[in-house]
């Protein structure tokens, strides 16, 4: 199987190159058979990449330690789910996995567009296969996954213990899906630029792909945060690590694109800007992979660093030059007759939203690369850590939260005084009221007060939108409130799905504010029977016990949780000692309530005295982060869900001589 896998990669690389060549030749000489041959070659590349991936998986599952990759990232005692996850746990495997996702998406795109977008498809295929050629080149020439060892070790070195976690089995695939899916809108954008068909056909053709990419970028970031929260054991979920930043930046620009594209669809404006955002998002996904793989900036997540940096940098530069060149070439065609009725309008609000989102992306980018700049300019290594990112991004985040409330309800074209009063009076009043109530309740953290007030403001704008829609349906059709709500959402999925996403975002802001402003923590060394207070709880350490398995030795602490003198729970924070490689890790114990988490970490332990060092945190409102993610996912699914033809709307009934357009 191993030789088959290696051979499959080599043939896939040749076929991918062939697909690029034939697609471009077919487009240039207008030869349909060339284009078809290129597409068939791409499908073959997908099949071959599947074979290569299956071969590597087979080697992992059968413990073929003669293979360097298998010996390095697995062992006979590694549970099966992590043995499978080892596919993306190492450098070569993750690049092969990337190639698999990319070629799979290419196959879907080709099958989706057998009869449509025929002018675009040769270029779409050529772009996607160019990216595939790059990744296949990496696994063929630079970091081959099927490299054999001169001898066969009796046992493997095992997967990094930090990766042996449920969230690590789904976080990388989710993030990769998001990263790779960004290549599809990019490929269509390039095709639109090359063909000069710069209307909104390419945007409509890739709308679901963009949402798909955004959804998985969102989930990838969230799963990564959950993994960091559970595994790293420092009580937090986001440390502005370079690799976290790498995943966050494309999410920001993709979010900006999802908003600005509405203006192009509705008003035929911002064609250049939308092109820039799609290109930027794709380039940031490659930049993110470059950061993760190159080791140019140290990161807690860079489990697989190597000398791939220059190749990624070269590919990134090539893609940037080609895409910017195409935009400059097509600039005369991209220019649209931009006009606004008023600066106080939804169009302006969306543009401001874009400004802030891209501004945050730039701030994150700048902070991430500033150590490299500092070293190049001054020769001095510096660190740009969480305090910098928190201080710079907090005010921008609050502006963004404010715009999240303004955008959906301010009128298109021109907001009149009446419109502003009608739509904003109640939300502003509730926002102020919430702030005052919290102030009266004793909260003196002013940034938190502002954030909570803005959360209330945005929530009310969304609730009022739903309420008005339901009332309108009730008045017009006489439906009961539940039916009216379901049909309202069903008939305007994009709009109301977007509102649901905004609710998820507000919930996340609540959690971020709660954990940033009101976190309590304590590190204490205790002996059995000792108690200590934290965040309204009393914690009693009752001792620790050990147990052993072939793979891991466990030390399990027992901590009783008391409130008002009564025991309400018992938590069991663990220390795990992995045997291959020998590495201790923490397994946190969490008590979750609506108000927040009590989060315990078992630190040092002294066998002689049975004393333990316990780090305890109270993270207020953190549950809203995860549930906000669920709501965000639900909203995206509502938005992306295909509408039945009859349910699509509104339908424009044309007058004579005009064509029908459906939304």
């Amino acid at each position, binding site marked *: 199987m191993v030789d088959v896998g290696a051979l499959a990669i080599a043939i896939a690389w040749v076929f991918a190159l062939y697909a690029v060549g034939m697609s471009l030749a077919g487009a240039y000489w207008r030869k349909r058979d060339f284009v078809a041959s290129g597409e068939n070659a791409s499908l073959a590349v997908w099949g071959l990449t599947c074979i290569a991936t299956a071969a590597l998986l087979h080697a992992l599952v059968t413990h073929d330690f003669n293979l360097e990759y298998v010996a390095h990232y697995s062992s006979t005692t590694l549970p099966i789910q992590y043995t499978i996850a080892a596919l993306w746990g190492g450098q070569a495997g993750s690049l092969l996995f990337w190639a698999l996702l990319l070629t799979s998406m290419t196959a879907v795109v080709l099958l989706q567009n057998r009869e449509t977008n025929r002018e675009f498809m040769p270029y779409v295929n050529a772009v996607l296969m160019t990216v595939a050629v790059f990744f296949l080149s990496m696994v063929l020439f630079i970091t081959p996954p099927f490299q054999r060892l001169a001898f066969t070790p009796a046992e493997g070195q095992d997967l990094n213990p930090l990766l042996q976690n449920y969230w690590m089995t789904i976080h990388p695939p989710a993030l990769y899906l998001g990263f790779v899916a960004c290549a599809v809108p990019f490929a269509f954008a390039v095709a639109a630029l090359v063909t000069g068909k710069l209307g909104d056909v390419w945007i409509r053709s890739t709308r679901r792909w963009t949402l798909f990419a955004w959804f998985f970028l969102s989930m990838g970031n969230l799963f990564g945060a959950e993994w960091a929260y559970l595994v790293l054991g*420092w009580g937090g979920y986001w440390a502005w690590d370079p690799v976290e930043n790498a995943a966050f930046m494309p999410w920001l620009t993709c979010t900006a694109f999802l908003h600005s594209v509405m203006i192009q669809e509705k008003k035929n404006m911002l064609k250049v800007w939308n092109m820039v955002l799609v290109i930027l998002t794709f380039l940031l996904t490659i930049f993110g992979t470059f950061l993760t793989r190159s080791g140019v900036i*140290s990161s807690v997540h860079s489990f697989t660093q190597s000398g791939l940096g220059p190749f990624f940098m070269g590919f990134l530069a090539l893609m940037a030059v080609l895409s910017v060149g195409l935009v400059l070439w097509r600039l005369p065609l991209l220019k649209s007759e931009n006009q606004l009725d008023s*600066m106080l309008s939804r169009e302006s609000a969306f543009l401001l939203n874009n400004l802030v989102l891209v501004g945050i992306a730039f*701030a994150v980018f700048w902070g991430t690369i500033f150590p490299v700049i500092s070293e190049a300019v001054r020769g001095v290594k510096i660190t740009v850590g*969480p305090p910098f990112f928190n201080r710079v991004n907090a005010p*921008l985040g609050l502006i963004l939260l404010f715009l999240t409330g303004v955008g959906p309800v301010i009128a*298109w074209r021109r907001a009149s005084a009446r419109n502003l009063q009608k739509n904003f009076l109640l939300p502003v009043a509730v926002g102020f009221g919430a702030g005052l109530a919290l102030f009266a309740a004793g909260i003196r953290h002013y940034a938190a007060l502002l954030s909570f007030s803005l959360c209330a403001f945005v929530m009310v704008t969304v609730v009022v939108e739903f309420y008005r829609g339901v009332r309108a349906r009730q008045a017009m059709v006489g439906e009961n409130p539940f039916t009216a709500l379901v049909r309202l959402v069903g008939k305007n999925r994009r709009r109301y799905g977007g509102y649901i996403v905004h609710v998820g975002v507000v919930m996340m802001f609540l959690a971020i504010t709660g954990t940033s402003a009101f976190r309590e923590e304590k590190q204490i060394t205790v002996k059995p029977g000792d108690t200590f207070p934290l965040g309204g709880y009393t914690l009693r350490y009752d001792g620790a016990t050990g147990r052993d398995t072939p793979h891991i030795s466990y030390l399990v602490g027992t901590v009783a949780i008391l409130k008002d003198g009564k025991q309400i729970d018992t938590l069991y924070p663990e220390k795990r000692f992995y045997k291959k490689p020998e590495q201790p890790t923490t397994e946190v114990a969490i008590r979750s309530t609506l108000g927040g988490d009590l989060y315990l970490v078992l630190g040092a332990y002294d066998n002689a005295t049975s004393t333990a060092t316990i780090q305890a945190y109270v993270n207020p409102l953190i549950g809203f982060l995860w549930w906000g993610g669920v709501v965000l996912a639900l909203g995206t699914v509502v938005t992306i869900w295909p509408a039945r033809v009859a349910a699509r709307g509104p339908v424009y009934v*044309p007058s004579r001589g005009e064509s029908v*357009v459906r939304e």
Partner: protein
Amino acid sequence: MSGRRPVPHSRRRAVLAAVAALCAALTTAVVAEHRSHAAESTASFQELEESLTCQCGCGLTVHSCNHLQCPSALPLRDEIRAQMALGKDKDTILAYFADKYGEKILSSPTTSGFNVMAWVTPFLALGIAAVLLTLMLARWTRRGQAPPGPASGPAAQAESPYSKILEKELKEFDR
């Protein structure tokens, strides 16, 4: 449409000034807040831990690193305690660590010399972009308020059905 007045220059200048002032205020506030944190004479142990980066490779601050027997975080914590016991203020303690271990031990750039670029650039870029956006919006608004000419060109023709849908939607949804 033709009856609408163009945006007066004075109002445009006021909007631009407001945008620039907002960005300047944001930059100043962020840098000032950072400086005030650094200058607090009665800095807590936790604040000092958070101002220093653990050198064990975890990428976290000394406060957040929870590695068992961490060869970096534990001695650094002892050193913080020792410095605090000498009655030094936060600024002096951080300067001591920067001198001893190099600037890379500080968890965020200082606000002096070249490092100011780290703090100012994001807001400067945002400010410039905001001013350009304001100018652009003002130009588009003037264009939108000009008397409508006859629609011409392929773009205008292609847009026609969408514009009508938009008009219909706006009537339906605008409040």
